[in-house]
Structure formats: C-alpha cells, structure tokens
C-alpha cells in the first residue's frame, strides 16, 4: 500500500494548476471503519489535493464518519485503487462533477436566477454577462461599447481563444424589444460555446480561429420596457422632439438608404426611422464598434423574430447585391441545416422581396461597409404565438438556429477575405 502512495505522490508533484473546469472530477463518499483507515485518508490528503466536502478538513475525520471528498480527474482511478486495496468502504457520489454542474446550470428549477430555457429580464442578463466571463476567462471577456438612452451599459462579450490576427464574426440580438426569443438565442450561443469548447470539434475550431463579438441585447431600454410596461413595445425609448411619442425603430436607423422605403418619418410610428441615421445612442454605439473593427469583422449576423426567415441584403432596394449568388447558396444551405433538427421550415432570400422593403437596416449597412457575409435571422414562429413564443420552445428554437449559425461561421472561416 505504501508503494502505491509513493507512486501517487510522484504523480502529484507534476500536477498543474487547477483549471476552472471540473470535467471528469469525482466525488467519493468513504466511511473509515477505524483509526488505520482514517490514517489512509490523512496520507492521501498529504500527498495530493483533496477537497473535503464533509467534514471541512481531513483533521476532523473520525472513524465511522461519513466523509465526502473531491479529487481531480487524473487522480480518481488511482484513489479508487488505493481505497480498494486498503479495504476501505467507498462509493462514487458524483461520477463527473462537470456534468452535474451543467445539468444544474441548464435546469429551469431556479426561480430568480438565470436560465437558458426561460426568458430572463435585463438585470439577470447583465449579471449573467459578468458571471459567464468570470467563469470562462480563457474564452470570454466582457466590455461596454456604449450606453443606452436611459444610461444602461451596453455589454459585449468577446468569445474565442486568444490569438494573433484573428478575424471575427459579429452577432447581435434584441434589436426589437418585444422579440424575446432573440436575446435568448444569444445567451444560448454563448453557453454552447463555453460548454462545448474542447468537446465539439466544429465549435473548438471556430473559437480557436475566430472571435465572436456577441451583443446579447442591443435595445436594452426597450427590452426593460417590455418587462415593466408594454410587452409589445418595439422601438428604443428615446424622447422625440415635439412629440408625445417615444422611440425610434433601431433597424430603420442605420445609414443604408435611410428612410427611403418601409420606414416612417412619424415619431409615433413603429417603424420611425429617427431624426437622422444613427440618431440613437444604441445604433451609434454598434456602428462605431463595427467601424473600429472593420478590418477584422468578416460576418455580421443579427437575430430577430418572428417569421422563420433567413435574409441577406438588400432590404432598402430590390436591386440584388453583387454577392447575391454566394449569399443565396449560404442561406439555402444554412436553412437546410436548421430544418434538419425539427423540420422547421425557413424561407430565405434578399430582404426586400422575401419579407418587405425596409431601409435603414443594420444588415444592409454592414454589407455596404464591406462585411460580405451579412444575414438577418427571423426566428420562430410563423404567427401562432408570434412574439409570445412559449418558453418551452426556447430550447428547440435555439438548438436549430445554432446549427445554421455554426454552418455560416464555418463557411466564413473557410472563405476568409
């Protein structure tokens, strides 16, 4: 037995700093029968890192006491051998701590906390952006790209393994306040990225070679308003001069054929284009960021609902973009990928003819800035629930959409320009 301990000791010396993932780590429950068995646990704790869950420390261990402790993944089989060899009665309480944590993370039993399968209010989302970055420092960093009209910080998450000269994809959600499934998707995307990095080859390749700038809610003020005052609000909450009506449609507020079609000059209208392009602090912050990072951003994805559409430029004109053929094939393939999961049918095409002509959209603006791969998603459904998509559909909607987004991201990576 002592020989085994020496071996374990040798292995421990080369142990590296503990990383924040608990993948493969086990939690054992042991009931030492006598002082000799207590001594075995003491020796174990002296030669490797053992995290005692109960009691708090090895010094408190006594015979006949239920002892729970956590060990690193690489050490667990050796520990098991040692316990077997010494005749110490044990059970594996948790076989894979990370899996147990993930299950709890995803569970929608947590009332006030964040859930990926529920609609989260802004305070919850804001707190989540801080948490997710803190828990995954190698993959996620949070920054503020500006403030909303009502003074709220616009959080941006930069996802990806750090590296030099990386190109990037920009993904935003929550342009229109009432489209709640949209911010839900951005959160889901971030979760999938951090949870499957190192496990899913596509996601790992994407995060190793690209950065993703994820803006979980563009129109934060509007989103808050849908939670507190009017569930069907769409626009921002800026005050309009000489009008009792509030707000500008952020997706009519970009400098792309601004206000020439499908938008209104009336501040009371749901598609009010604003007093000027980028009149809104939110759209200006987004546009400034993209302009500043133009040389690295190679794709722009913006998430809306509802209608089940995958759109690309142009919406401000019926004229087809010069990259029409390529964008059309990408949209076709991405739609197929999306449908492959639950048979959800998407229609795809240039905005003007597929949904309606509408000027001032962020996708058209991004394209005209030189970001070739520019797409707008209109997520589920086609009108039965519309903006009030049941929470039970968050998971399937996000899963299928993720397939399309990964397809597009992978395509971009293979066609960098």
């Amino acid at each position, binding site marked *: 037995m002592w020989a085994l301990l020496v071996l374990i000791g040798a292995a421990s010396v080369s142990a590296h700093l503990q990383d924040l993932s608990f993948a493969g780590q086990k939690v054992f429950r042991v009931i030492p029968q006598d002082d000799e068995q207590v001594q075995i646990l003491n020796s174990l704790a002296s030669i490797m890192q053992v995290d005692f869950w109960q009691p708090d420390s090895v010094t408190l261990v006594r015979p006949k006491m239920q002892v729970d402790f956590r060990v690193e993944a690489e050490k667990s089989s050796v520990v098991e051998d040692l316990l077997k060899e010494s005749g110490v009665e044990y059970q594996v309480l948790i076989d894979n701590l990370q899996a147990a944590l993930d299950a709890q993370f995803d569970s929608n039993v947590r009332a006030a906390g964040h859930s990926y399968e*529920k*609609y989260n209010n802004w305070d919850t989302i804001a707190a989540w952006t801080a948490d997710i970055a803190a828990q995954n420092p190698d993959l996620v960093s949070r920054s503020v790209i500006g403030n909303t009209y009502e003074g709220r910080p616009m959080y941006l998450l930069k996802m990806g393994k750090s590296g030099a000269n990386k190109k990037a994809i920009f993904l935003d959600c929550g342009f229109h306040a009432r489209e*709640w499934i949209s911010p839900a998707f951005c959160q889901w995307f971030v979760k999938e990225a951090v949870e499957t990095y190192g496990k899913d080859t596509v996601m790992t390749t994407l995060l190793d070679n690209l950065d993703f700038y994820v803006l979980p809610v563009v129109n934060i003020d509007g989103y808050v308003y*849908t*939670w507190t005052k009017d*569930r*069907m609000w*769409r626009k921002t909450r800026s005050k309009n001069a000489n009008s009792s009506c509030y707000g500008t*449609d952020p997706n009519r507020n970009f400098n792309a054929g601004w206000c020439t079609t*499908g938008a*209104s000059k009336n501040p*009371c*209208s*749901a*598609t009010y284009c604003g007093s000027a392009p980028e009149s809104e602090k939110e759209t200006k912050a987004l546009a400034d960021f993209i302009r500043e990072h133009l040389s690295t951003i190679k794709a722009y994805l913006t998430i809306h609902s509802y*209608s089940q559409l995958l759109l690309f430029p142009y919406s401000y004109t019926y004229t087809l973009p010069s990259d029409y053929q390529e964008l059309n094939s990408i949209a076709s393939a991405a739609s197929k990928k999306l449908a492959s999961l639950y048979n959800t049918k998407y229609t795809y095409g240039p905005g003007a003819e597929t949904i*309606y002509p509408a000027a001032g959209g962020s996708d058209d603006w991004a394209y005209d800035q030189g970001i070739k791969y520019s797409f707008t998603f209109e997520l589920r459904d086609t*009108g*039965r*629930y*519309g*903006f*009030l*998509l*049941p*929470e*039970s*559909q968050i998971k399937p909607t996000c899963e299928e959409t993720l397939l399309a987004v990964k397809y597009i991201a992978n395509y971009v990576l293979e066609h960098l320009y």
Partner: protein
Amino acid sequence: DIKDVGHKYYLDLELEDVPDKDSTVNCSAEVLYHLGNKNIAPDVQFTLEGELKSTEEADHMFYTRIRSLEKELVAENIPDSQGHVPPELEPIHRLAWVASGYVTWQNSTENTQLQLAQIKRVKQVKRSDEYLQFDYVVLLHEMVSQEMIPWEMTVLWHPRDGVQVPRDSRQPRH
C-alpha cells in the same frame, strides 16, 4: 391581374389541426382583392379536400362548463408574456383566433398582413338566450407597418351555430 376588377390569387393550402399536428386537410382557395375601394373585404372562395374532424364532444364540454359558471369569466393577457396559456383558457384563445380571423379578413388588403398577437382582455357577458357571448379586446399585429392594433370584438358562439362577430371596432392607440 383582372382588368378593372382587381388582383386574384390562387392558393393551395395545407390545413393543420393544432391539437393534433399529424391531422391535415388540403384546401384550395381563390382570393380576389378589389381595385380601388379599400373598404371592401377581399372575396374568398375555398374548397376543402376532405373533412374536418368533428369537435362535437369538446364543444359540448366547453359550452356546458361556461354556462355553469357562477361568475362571468374574465381573463387578461392570453398568452402571457412568456407565451403560456392556462389549459382551461385554451378554448377562449381558440375562439379569439376564429373571431379575429373574421376581423382580419374584413380588414385586409394586398398590403397588409394581420395576425392575432394577444388577447388583452376577455369578459364573458351572460345572455338570456342560448348563446355564449365574450367581449374581447385583442391586439392585432400588422406585419408590414409593425403596428399593434387594439381591436374590440363581440363574439357569439353556440355549438350548433358556430362563431359570429356581430360587432367589432378598431381602437385608438393608448
């Protein structure tokens, strides 16, 4: 394009039974939007290729349940913000769908796409005759303008006679 008359559309539709998604019925329809006068509802002709399932039993259960209520049914925000509809209010929700279908038809042009977004309020009105009456305020979402239009509708229903919408009016925005 029918000269001096309007635009006619020929449609092949597949109707899906919401509670039983595998049950579908094909339908062909012709819709004529009249030129000029936007106050005339489009003409609709349709042919069902097959039969719709009988809902006699469910209709009867709903009818009896509502008739036996002591206090008039009152409800708000169906579905709620999270998209939930309490099971006992599901028939009220469906009734609103049918009634708003009529309102949508009466108020549609080639440039509108109206859809029931939510029931803001519904109040049952007890009647001395055999009909059930529900007064609704619904929100209709107009896709092209993206407006949410409040609309009042008085809806009558009886298992034998089906749905009627004797009164409906567009409300001013709040």
